[in-house]
């Protein structure tokens, strides 16, 4: 018994040291921009960008393989901030200005289709879904980032993304017609 325990711990210690040494030797230094970009990305690891999590996305951008507009839930604001870091010229870049109109999305569950399978509930990266086995699930819109993860896993297709409903608090006036634009239409 004692010999078994001793040999096992010796083995563990040896392997641990080996791993530690390997980590030191083969350490890849990630550039600090990756950390910086990871902080800007939502951090939900939803995978919509096609990279393994937000860190993966940040690395891909840093290597130049991915556009700054890759994050759908982050939207235009995140894209602009990323562009600032990596120095992409974003003054009227078609991708970023194309993002302007994306309204924040939230998930919506059709209650008569929900079977209470809890798949979405387990998958939501921000715990925005409440529910229990065999109970109708629902989404807390304040916590939902519209990342699409739940839509993907729902077996009955009971979940859709919708634009976040506007409230009196979030509503504001449209930008009024610009004087120059007004003149231009007058001339045309």
């Amino acid at each position, binding site marked *: *018994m004692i010999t078994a325990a001793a040999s096992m711990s010796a083995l563990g210690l040896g392997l641990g040291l080996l791993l530690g040494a390997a980590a030191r030797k083969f350490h890849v230094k990630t550039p600090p921009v990756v950390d910086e970009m990871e902080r800007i990305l*939502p*951090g*939900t*690891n939803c995978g919509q960008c096609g990279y393994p999590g937000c860190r993966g996305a940040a690395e891909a951008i840093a290597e130049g393989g991915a556009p700054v507009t890759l994050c759908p839930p*982050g*939207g235009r*604001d*995140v894209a602009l901030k990323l562009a600032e870091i990596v120095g992409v010229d974003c003054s009227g870049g078609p991708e970023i200005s194309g993002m302007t109109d994306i309204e*924040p999305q939230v998930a919506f569950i059709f209650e008569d289709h929900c079977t209470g399978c809890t798949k979405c509930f387990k998958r939501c*990266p*921000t*715990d*925005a879904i409440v529910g229990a086995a065999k109970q109708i699930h629902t989404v807390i819109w*304040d*916590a939902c*980032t519209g990342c699409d993860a739940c839509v993907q896993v729902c077996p009955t297709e009971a979940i859709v993304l919708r634009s976040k409903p*506007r*409230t*009196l608090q*979030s*509503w*504001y*006036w*449209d*930008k*009024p*017609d*610009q*004087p*120059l634009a*007004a*003149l231009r239409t*007058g001339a045309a």
Partner: protein
Amino acid sequence: MGALLSALLSSIRGGVHPETRKFLSAESPIEPMPIPALLRLPLQQHIGAPAEPLVARDDHVLKGQLIARARGPISANLHAPTSGRVIAVGPFPAPHPSGLPVPTITLRPDGADRWAPRLPRLRPEDAEPEEIAARVAEAGIVGMGGATFPAAVKLTLRDRYRLHTLIINAAECEPYLTCDDRLLRERAEEVADGAGIMARALGVTKIIVAIESNKPAAAAAMRRHNLGLGHPVQVRVVATQYPMGSEKHLVRAVTGRETPARALTAELGIVVHNSATAQAVHLAVRYGEPLLSRVVTVSGRGVARPANVQALLGTPVADLLAHCGGLTEDPDRLLLGGPMMGQPIRSPRVPVVKGTNGVLALTRAETRKAETMPCIRCGACVRACPCGLTPFELNARIQAGDLEGAAAVGLLDCVSCGCCSYICPSNIPLVQGFSFAKGKLAETESRKHQQEETRRLAAARTAREEAIAEAKRAAMARHKAQMAEKKRRAAEEAAQAAEEAPAEPQEAAK
């Protein structure tokens, strides 16, 4: 002559002198209105958190009964304006330019107008200041000049500031509106008493009622009732100038002192309340009547019979217009509030709420809207801005998409008074652009906040999942150890058994 008079009276820097058109309704006494067929009562008629409904569909309620309770410290109670049956609690378009649906209690009056037991009367002469403030909160009174900030919160400011003066705002600088003018002319005594009660709650003795010089009858009426709870009520006539009724500008005109940017007038020891709020406080404290109705000016050239109406809260705008003879022509704009700062509404089905001081139907002739031309840098907007801003520069930055830049030159100090848009010879929609920019900035701010929240939630989830996985691993390890222990014991037993009967296995081996 008018300019000379304004120069002699206390005035404010900047400002404009729009045509007041108050004559349309100034001579119509406040008139009651028959109870409408339906009342729509939004749960949020105030700044702060929406109230929480206490009634459900098919409940029968009595006049003055509490139907929605304030939620949180900045919120306001809501009472049934008359007796009747609740026919719905659900979304209904808000009296707001967006027309978005908001939670609303719909009441069908039964016509009996039967009172619920009223709140017990208070004798303000010997009530504690806290009791008065609590009563004002219970009665659901909010700032009735249009700001709709819960009045009780403003009555407890003495805990944090050293106060000395209460100013009753009866400037009513918006064109067309005459509801405060009429209130002062007809119910000066109640306003004075309400002012006295509020002064007691605030612990101040100096009361000033500020009235613009174009309302001499109101000033005269107020001078006749110059005592509020034993304290002298001083009448102060100020220049007729828009935006005199803005709280900070009024304080400056009356006392000559400037309130710091983004601070309360309480910092100067002064609290400002509207005259209609004072009257509501009088009714709540002396008679135990919660806020159930208000005086609304119905005016504009599009209305057949401009009037000042005592309307129940929740009265649909359409009913109010019908009571005033209906519309003479299709109005160009239907506004809640005054023409300078009022909000256009999309449908006349929306209700009158606590902050609605006017319903205006303006005809095409009244809404000046010529074509927008480029800015000629005339500086008229700079001279007109009562907040000392440079509107043309703000506008240029906003048009260029530089909202932060606009904020850096004072966008957030703009009070949206509209003087700049009014005066601009090029008809540039300046204040409209500022409203957009403020909304957009607020949205950016809230998105940022939400992103931080998202990160926090995601981190919390990861931590939790790791903790669960860790617990599982530990359980697994324990289980393994137990299994190993069992095996070992079984092996030992087997070995013992083998020792005891060594012959058998050997035989088996053979």
